[in-house]
């Protein structure tokens, strides 16, 4: 494969570069490697593909706008299959490779946390584009993320639903770390605002038949449903809800936001309301240019996941640029911690100086006639 021979060439170049290390730094281009661990095979490979696409696009942009003088930056992708065991091996590989100054990934929180222990011990900055487990960032000062935790999104959606007049809501959430935190933060915020929760229904990952849950919810007759799941399950849920004629309107967390949802769910998706950090119809020129180029290059509209990865890589590259070609893992970490007002396609991102959590803005969206649109 072409990528393999390129990688082999890159490694040989690296070896040659190390051997010639006695030359003064200014005369030599330093090879800086960013490790990217992501699922390129297995059940989550479609997410990994999207991350890789977005990352490549961002790297192209970076080079086109001048890159970093005195250094050549490459991204090294490794397939973790979203499996903790594989990911830990990859993490060790990255840690051992002296040219890797920072790592992006992984996809799910559990895997990101499993490798987080390794990066923490070795002192390698790690930025995950999607790990939203509240404990992830507490592992050590080396962990970063550019995705909002549910601690922020839950109350946002709770306030929205209360504004719309909903008083009794049922929550359906996926039984994983993300779903748990999403459901709890929403439920607590909703109750704090005076609403009541009829029940929180957790379903094990992989389940696609929600009719039992829908029937159970129907019995309790809530006036709204809040979903904490991904778009594949969401599509099934919405279709089955239509089949069983459950009338309560549906709100969802931003995880449901994806073009594919519209195709998969057909007419059942009309009327869905959800929050999102990434809106492709956002007139902001940065967003538009990203959407246009992504669609041109890869033939599909970018999803929120693409936007997240695009920004994640962008944040790391910006931090590297700030430090310069002599960047090390320590200096990169400090630069990342100081990220303020990074203009990303998923919103302006700032890392809190205390907790390193990102602060972003969320938008409210609704689906009408099979299209997403933003509600002011």
């Amino acid at each position, binding site marked *: *494969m072409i*990528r393999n021979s390129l990688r082999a060439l890159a490694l040989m170049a690296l070896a040659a570069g190390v051997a010639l290390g006695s030359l003064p730094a200014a005369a030599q281009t330093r090879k800086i490697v960013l490790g990217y661990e992501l699922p390129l095979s297995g059940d989550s490979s479609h997410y990994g593909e999207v991350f890789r696409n977005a990352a490549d696009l961002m790297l192209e942009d970076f080079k086109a706008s001048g890159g970093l003088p005195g250094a050549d930056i490459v991204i090294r992708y490794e397939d973790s299959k979203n499996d903790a065991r594989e990911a*830990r091996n990859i993490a*060790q*590989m990255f840690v051992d490779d002296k040219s890797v100054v920072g790592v992006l990934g992984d996809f799910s929180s559990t895997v990101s946390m499993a490798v987080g222990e390794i990066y923490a011990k070795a002192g390698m900055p790690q930025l995950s584009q999607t790990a939203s487990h509240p404990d992830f960032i507490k592992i050590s000062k080396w962990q970063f993320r550019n995705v909002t935790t549910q601690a922020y999104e839950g109350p946002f959606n709770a306030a929205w639903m209360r504004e719309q007049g909903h008083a009794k809501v049922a929550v359906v959430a996926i*039984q994983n770390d993300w779903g748990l935190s999403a459901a709890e933060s929403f439920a607590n915020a909703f109750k704090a605002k005076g609403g009541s929760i009829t029940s929180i229904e957790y379903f*094990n990952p992989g389940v696609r038949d929600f009719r039992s849950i829908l029937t159970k919810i129907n019995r309790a007759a809530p006036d709204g449903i809040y979903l904490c799941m991904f778009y594949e399950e969401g599509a099934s849920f919405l279709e089955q809800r239509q089949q069983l004629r459950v009338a309560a309107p549906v709100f969802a967390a931003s995880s449901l936001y994806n073009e594919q949802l519209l195709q998969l769910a057909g007419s059942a998706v009309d009327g869905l309301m959800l929050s999102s950090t990434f809106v492709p119809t956002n007139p902001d020129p940065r967003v538009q240019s990203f959407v246009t180029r992504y669609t041109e290059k890869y033939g599909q509209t970018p999803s929120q996941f693409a936007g997240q990865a695009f920004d994640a890589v962008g944040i790391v590259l910006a931090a590297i640029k700030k430090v310069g070609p002599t960047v090390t893992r320590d200096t990169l970490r400090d630069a990342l911690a100081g990220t303020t007002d990074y203009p990303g396609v998923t919103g302006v991102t700032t890392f809190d100086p205390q907790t390193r959590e990102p602060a972003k803005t969320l938008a409210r969206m609704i689906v009408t006639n099979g299209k997403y649109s933003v509600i002011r």
Partner: protein
Amino acid sequence: MASAVSARKNVSGPTIPPAVLKAMLAIFLFIIVPVALSWIGGGYLFQVATTTLIFIILASSLNLVTGTAGLLSLGHAGFYGIGAYAAALLSTRLGLSFLATLPLAGVAAGAVGVLVALPTMRLVSIYFAVATLGIGEMIYVILLNWTGFTHGPMGIRGIPPIDLLGWQPGTPLFDYLVVAAVTALSLWAMSRLMHSYYGNALRAVREDDQCADAMGLNVVRLKIEAFGVSCFFAGIAGALFCHTAGFISPDQFRFAESINILAMVVVGGLGSLPGAVIGAALLIILPEALRSFGDFRMIAIGSIMFLSILLQPKGLLGEASALDLLRRQFGQGWSGNFATRVGWR
């Protein structure tokens, strides 16, 4: 390696004296490998080596119950998970040290194994296999949903690394050496069980349990013991895993992992302990070695697995060959002129 034929001739004994062979293996495991890996530097290879050792314990324990005793168990990862969670909870909630959590994890897994074995012992072959599949899945569901006790999908974080009576360097080398020591001990124990008259009894139960019963063997008790011991070692592997990983979550202990372990045993040779070791090493190291295949890696692995089973259905080191090897090379057979290799020492 037809032992019947060579029994008639006066064959030479082992090419290397058994004691020397064992010493060589020990030196390889405890000196050559760590020195080589330290010299190459970096934690990656140590990581792979430690994982290989843990899976060697898992594959050998599955081999004990499935290969030697003939009880196909599709829920092995569940007991691995029980061991890991037991060790994690004991060390994070009660602050017990590694020397305590390791055996306790094994005992926990073994106890659950015996509990599970008691009602299901009347089942034969495929029925028993499905029952173990069900039990493995039930264990996963409990780990996932009993959030109060196990933290559910959040997993357990911050598990302390291996410490020996307060000494806790936490380096990959140290972890490797401790895991290697435990692996060597476990393998020795399982070898003593499998390559002895007790092992013969298990094999008899496997081949024809009604005959074994007629011969006076307590079949039910043997089966339960084999299952319990195998789960004990799975628990030990789980404890090792959780202390070297620092973070565990329920999705690492699903049916797919049970199938992985079973694949290691079958590829290596069902019923053969060295075969299980080889199978585990192969199926852990191969995916790492094939990383350059990129997107085609899993296809390559599946094909290699298929080819190895196709070309060597009895396993890379099948049972007959392995037993023969052990009797001859390791001197576990009856002493004397090695002309007859009947019977264990």
